[in-house]
């Protein structure tokens, strides 16, 4: 038992959804697994002693732990579903909500597919930049890499995504 419940609840409410979104994009749209990992990350955070981690560091700590858990999950799944491949992938996909705009759902699916095609580190760096609006320094802190590596990763990720996006929607760059 470590953290003050009130403080923990505040941090949870502030970051839970963003963390779920980050994980969902990192895992290629698996919302159930994303939620499980997010909860596991928060549980580990809750068990930490107050002195072990200052509250200002909480966000970075959570993203680092969640990303590591997601990496484990990705490697596990890769081995488990190697043979089933695309078929399982299609079956696992969430059917589009009838209320959702079809075009938007399709675009989201394209974004997910494009993100999935990136190497994991580039994907994580790009997501932390675009969705979480972290600085390169903060991203380097979360991913435990240098700032110059972050710079290169983000640029490469953007370049690759841009090319694939234009290809997918039929625009020549």
């Amino acid at each position, binding site marked *: *038992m470590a953290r003050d*419940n009130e403080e*923990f*609840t505040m941090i*949870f*409410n502030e970051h*839970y*959804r963003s963390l*779920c*979104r980050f994980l*969902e*994009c990192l895992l290629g749209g698996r*919302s159930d697994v*994303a*939620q499980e990992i*997010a*909860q596991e990350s*928060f*549980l580990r955070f*809750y*068990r930490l002693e107050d002195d072990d981690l200052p509250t200002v560091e909480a966000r970075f700590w959570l993203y680092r732990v969640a990303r590591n858990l997601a990496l484990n999950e990705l490697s596990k799944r890769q081995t488990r579903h190697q043979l089933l491949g695309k078929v399982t992938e299609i079956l696992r996909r969430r059917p589009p*909500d009838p209320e959702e705009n079809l075009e*938007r759902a399709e*675009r*989201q699916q*394209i*974004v*997910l597919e494009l*993100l999935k095609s990136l190497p994991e580190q580039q994907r994580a760096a*790009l*997501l932390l*930049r*675009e*969705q979480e609006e972290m*600085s*390169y320094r903060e991203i380097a802190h979360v991913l435990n890499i240098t700032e110059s590596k972050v*710079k290169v990763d*983000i*640029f490469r990720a*953007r*370049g690759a*995504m*841009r090319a694939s*996006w*234009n290809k997918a929607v039929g625009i020549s*760059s």
Partner: protein
Amino acid sequence: MDCHFTEKISLLIDDELTEEEAKEATAHLSDCVACQRAHDDFLRLRGEINSYAVASDFVAQRRALRRILGAEKPPLWRRSIRLPVPACALLLVALISLGVWLAFVRQSMPVSKEAEMKPQKVLTRPAPAQDLLDLARFDRGERAAIYKVRRANQGDIEQ
């Protein structure tokens, strides 16, 4: 075809350039069509990635929070009571003052008075109750004898 400056455009939109570099990149951007296109594409991708929304299920979120908070309840003997620091300090000062006062009072008290205050316990054997009726006699069947003595005594008084 990409321009060699495209990497700077990526840094520009991330606000990771110095003021000087940002000015240079902005000036280049106004002249270079390839960089303008890259700039627009990067921003469009940002919008697409940002617009990715997770299904908002607040009930599930609350349930998750409750599960985490409920998972870690320590046993009763390991729970600690948190007191505010000023209250602890005040309590400590009060205890020390009380201790000092008691010590002072004990020291200043005279020995004779102290002795007076001590209760004197003297063990004295109770005097034999000769005048009292010995009830043990009843157990030995001497009731009638006692009765007779009493009657005799009463007779003396009547006479």
